[in-house]
Structures are given as structure tokens and as C-alpha cells.
């Protein structure tokens, strides 16, 4: 079986009609994972035995008429920073070597209850710090569209797994674009929900005020099914919104008549953006206009400050969150140390990669005496101004339409020498995290053979609206059906 997975709805129909079994789907996914996944370095861990057992249980439920959910028996992969009880979780870092989680993250508990089948753990930038999946202790994942290019990051393994048709769905996490940017580079759909929609319990923290887990899939409709399954209030996460689980999948009508779409002037005039990417995004905007939406230009006057504010806030939070990795309670511990301080220092220096060290140092610096006001506090004030920009823009439109990235997938190694050039690849995505907004990236065509990502941003809480616009676009255009060349 080499044909690609259909939509989640099609898979469910095939399961219901007895044309396939969950075991068949999981065996197919594991076979692709072993062949294509291996070639692209998609996985840090495969869970063959557990997945096959879960598939058989799903088939037994179906036979008994006790199917749990639209995801029952459907294969998916999760990013290596989302914990599962009894399974390894490394965040693609040497410092978590050998760690086995004693508990389930809330999203994994919800997926188990829904009957979804995790087949493995996807590669990522170490601790989600990066935009290329090159900062992984396991080495980089390759982009299915061009094996010399990056799949983006930090959820590069998750996006590549969907793009390479190993699985129809994946979970990633997005702190500054880490779901949307790899989705754009790999030609798939990736969504960052409103901050607090999805519980962060069991997501290894990078920057707590910015991190969100979200779905990656072939279509907005598939992502909606997964988002609905993982969303909802969780008392285990003090930043979880006091809202019930979403029911977006049933609201994707394709109707965008009367909807106003804002095009942020600054995003289309950004220095260094590839004209071919901007043109492809403008063409997509015109298609939505032809489909009944109204286009207006809007201003986000502080857009050019977002990356600087983001890297100050994210690294400050990271320096605090990553203090827990000290070689005492879990993970790797340095050998032959004379005292406790040496244990901390050697464990952390041997265990963390260069980019993680760099961010811990930057975060520690901006929080240190004498610099706190000038850097960290300043960045938090800019964050307020960015939120106000969005409030003002959304007074005149329902969603914003932007490129997801300033360029298509870059070559492996192209940006590793200069961290700042890597950071600047996040210019269109970090603002949604700083402002807590929902955002989705979806494919809107190719530029020189590589996928271009279209980003739809919505008001906080309006996750359903951004998915509705993305789904409407996918009814008007079929760019999401484009596939990379044969990878077998």
C-alpha cells in the first residue's frame, strides 16, 4: 500500500464501512515511518508494539459498536516535548537521555480517551528552540519537498511526518511559530490555538506565557477535528482558559461572505521578504475576495519590533524554566564531580546544545540586575503595544491574512552560523504568540517548487473563525492536495 492517507473523514468512513481496519492503518503508518521516516529523520522514537495494541483495541471497539470519537483508531505522531506515561521524552536533548515520563500530558490523556493511536515521537529543535530542526541532538529532519532543505522548526518532525504521508495528523507546539513555520515549509496545515485553549500540562515548558500545543494536518478540516479533541479547560494548567472543549469541526461551512480580511501593510513591505512569496499570498487573498470576502489594508505599526521583544521575553522565561535540568531528579548527570555546583555546571554544559545555552545566557543576562528594566521590562511594554495594534486592526476586520514566512524552506546549514538570521525567519509568526492570538498556516501554492504558507490570524478566542477561513480557502483552491515527489 503506497497511496496516501485520505482525509480523517474519509478514513473514518473507510473504517466504518469495514474497507480498512485500524490495524491496517497503523501497519501502513509504521511501514512508512520505518522507510520514509527513517530517510528523513522524522522520529526520535517509534512505538510499534504499543501502537499495534492500541489499533487492535480500536478495532475491537468498532466491532462492538463502541467507537469513542472521530479519531478512534487513527494514527498520529506527537512532538518529543509532549509526555506520555511510560514512554521516553527527550525534547531532542542529551540532557533528558533516558527519561521516562511517570505521567500523561493532558493532550495525550485526551487522545487516549478519544482512541487516537500515537505511533511515535517526532524530532524537533532541542527544547523547541529553533526554526529549522537542526538544533536536535539526533540531527536534522529533512524537508520532504527537497532533502537538502530544512522542514522548518521547531516542530519539523511533526510537519514532515504529515507532508511525507506517514500519518494524517500530528501534534506540535508553537512558542514563536514552531507549528506554523514548519507547516508552511512542508506544505501542510498547522495551527496555534488561542493561548490557553489547549492545556500545557505535560508539555515541557520553553516560554510559559507563549507556548501552545496545536494540530498539524493536510487540511483545516482535519486540524479542526484534532483541535476539538485536545482543547478545553484543564485544572492542571493554571493558564488554561475556563472554556469547554471546542466544536469547530461542525462549523466549517465554507461561507465567508461578508467576512472582512485585513492585509497588514507592514507584513507586505518587510525588508528581505521574497517577492514570489508575497505575490503568492496576494493571489490567495484575491481568491478569498472572489469567494465573497472583503479585503482591507490595515496597519500594525509596531510589527518591526516583534522579533526583538519576542527573543527577550522567550529567552527570559526559558532561562527560568530550564533551571530545573540540573542532574538531580531526572535525565543525564555528569560523572566524577567534586561538589554540587560542579554537578550543576557540568551536567548542564554537557547536556545542552549551543542554541539552548545561548538562549539561557541571553535570558539570564536580560533578567540580571541592571538590565532587567532596559531589556525585559522594555520588551513587555512593547508586548502591550503589539496587543494594542492587533486590537485596533481587528476593529476593522475579522481576520488578518499574511505570509507565514518571509521565504520558502531554506537550505540546511544556511542559517546556522548566525543565530540572528535564524531568529528573523520568525518575523510573521511571533506576534501571534505575544498577543495570544489563534493563527493557522496553510499551503497556498508553490514558489520555485517549494510550498508557500498563508497565515490567517484571528481575534483571541476566535479559533473557529481562522479555521473557517482556512477551510473556505481549501474549498476554493486545492493547493493542500499538492504532494512532494516520490520518497520511497
Amino acid at each position, binding site marked *: 500500500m503506497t497511496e496516501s492517507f485520505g482525509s480523517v473523514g474519509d478514513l473514518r468512513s473507510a473504517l466504518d464501512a469495514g474497507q480498512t481496519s485500524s490495524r491496517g492503518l497503523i501497519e501502513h503508518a509504521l511501514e512508512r515511518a520505518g522507510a520514509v521516516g527513517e530517510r528523513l529523520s522524522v522520529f526520535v522514537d517509534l512505538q510499534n508494539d504499543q501502537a499495534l495494541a492500541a489499533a487492535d483495541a480500536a478495532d475491537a471497539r468498532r466491532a462492538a459498536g463502541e467507537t469513542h470519537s472521530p479519531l478512534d483508531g487513527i494514527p498520529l505522531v506527537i512532538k518529543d516535548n509532549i509526555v506520555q506515561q511510560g514512554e521516553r521524552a527527550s525534547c531532542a536533548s542529551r540532557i533528558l537521555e533516558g527519561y521516562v515520563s511517570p505521567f500523561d500530558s493532558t493532550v495525550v490523556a485526551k487522545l487516549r480517551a478519544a482512541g487516537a493511536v500515537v505511533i511515535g515521537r517526532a524530532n524537533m529543535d532541542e527544547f523547541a528552540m529553533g526554526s529549522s530542526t537542526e538544533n536536535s541532538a539526533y540531527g536534522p529532519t529533512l524537508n520532504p519537498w527537497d532533502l537538502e532543505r530544512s522542514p522548518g522548526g521547531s516542530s519539523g518532525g511533526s510537519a514532515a511526518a504529515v507532508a511525507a504521508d506517514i500519518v494524517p495528523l500530528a501534534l506540535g507546539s508553537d512558542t514563536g511559530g514552531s507549528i506554523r513555520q514548519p507547516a508552511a515549509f512542508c506544505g501542510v496545515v498547522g495551527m496555534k490555538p488561542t493561548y490557553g485553549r489547549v492545556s500545557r500540562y505535560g508539555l515541557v515548558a520553553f516560554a510559559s506565557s507563549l507556548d501552545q500545543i496545536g494540530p498539524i494536518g493536510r487540511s483545516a478540516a482535519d486540524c479542526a477535528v484534532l483541535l476539538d479533541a485536545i482543547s478545553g479547560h484543564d485544572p492542571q494548567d493554571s493558564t488554561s482558559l475556563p472554556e469547554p472543549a471546542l466544536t469547530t469541526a461542525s462549523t466549517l461551512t465554507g461561507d465567508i461572505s461578508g467576512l472582512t480580511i485585513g492585509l497588514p501593510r507592514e507584513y507586505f513591505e518587510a525588508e528581505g521578504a521574497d517577492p514570489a512569496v508575497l505575490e503568492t499570498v496576494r493571489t490567495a487573498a484575491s481568491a478569498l475576495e472572489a469567494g465573497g470576502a472583503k479585503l482591507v489594508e490595515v496597519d500594525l505599526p509596531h510589527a518591526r519590533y516583534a522579533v526583538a521583544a519576542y527573543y527577550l521575553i522567550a529567552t527570559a522565561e526559558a532561562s527560568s524554566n530550564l533551571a530545573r535540568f540540573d542532574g538531580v531528579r*531526572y535525565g543525564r548527570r555528569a560523572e566524577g564531580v567534586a561538589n554540587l555546583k560542579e554537578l550543576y555546571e557540568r551536567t548542564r554544559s554537557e547536556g545542552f546544545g549551543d542554541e539552548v545555552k545561548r538562549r539561557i545566557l541571553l535570558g*539570564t543576562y536580560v533578567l540580571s540586575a541592571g538590565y532587567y528594566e532596559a531589556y525585559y521590562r522594555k520588551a513587555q511594554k512593547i508586548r502591550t503595544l503589539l496587543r494594542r495594534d492587533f486590537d485596533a486592526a481587528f476593529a476593522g476586520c475579522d481576520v488578518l491574512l499574511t505570509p507565514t514566512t518571509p521565504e520558502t524552506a531554506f537550505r540546511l546549514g544556511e542559517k546556522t552560523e548566525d543565530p540572528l538570521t535564524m531568529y528573523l525567519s520568525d518575523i510573521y509568526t511571533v506576534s501571534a504568540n505575544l498577543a495570544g492570538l489563534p493563527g493557522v498556516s496553510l499551503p497556498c501554492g508553490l514558489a520555485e517548487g517549494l510550498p508557500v504558507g498563508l497565515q490567517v490570524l484571528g481575534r*483571541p478566542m476566535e479559533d473557529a473563525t481562522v479555521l473557517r477561513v482556512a477551510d473556505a480557502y481549501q474549498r476554493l483552491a486545492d493547493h493542500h492536495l499538492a504532494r512532494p515527489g516520490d520518497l520511497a
Partner: protein
Amino acid sequence: MSRIAPEDAKRVAELARLRLDDAELPAMTAHLERILEYVDLLMEVDTRGVEPTAHAIPLATPTRKDEPTGELTPEQAIANAPAAEGTAFSVPKVFDDEAAG
């Protein structure tokens, strides 16, 4: 103007419980310098009177009853420890033998 000297980077590394060896120090300092130079962009924005944002979507801190709810057992909590004695984490001395004299 240099914003961060190699000795500053070393001091910050010690605060963060990281060790930078002499081979790593120049590149790390240069990277930090370049990033700090870039973020100076923020200084052109007048933020007088602007309140800082810590969380984009403000929520009151939720509270619950002060009762145990499904925490790990000591055995589970210790299971990942690199070194343990019974149900306690084991660590080296805070001071080494010479310093302790």
C-alpha cells in the same frame, strides 16, 4: 560600542550554572553581542506610561482546595533519578572535601 565582554558572558554563565570553556567563549560572546545590538531597536520606541504585559490573556490565578490530588508516589518520583538512596535523591556534597577542610 561593545555591549557584552567575554568576562560578562562568563559571569552570566556562572549565574546560569553553565560553563563556557575558552574555545566556546569568543563565538558565544559575539553571538550575544549581535543579538543585543539588534534588540537595541526597541530603544527607539517611546514606552513611557505603557503598562508591561506578562500574559496576553489575563486570567485571575485560579485556586483549589489544599488537598492532595493524584500526585506521584515517592517510588514514581524517584524512578528517573540518576542517583538515589531509598526514596531520596542523592547528590554530592555542597562543598568538596578540601573546601570543607
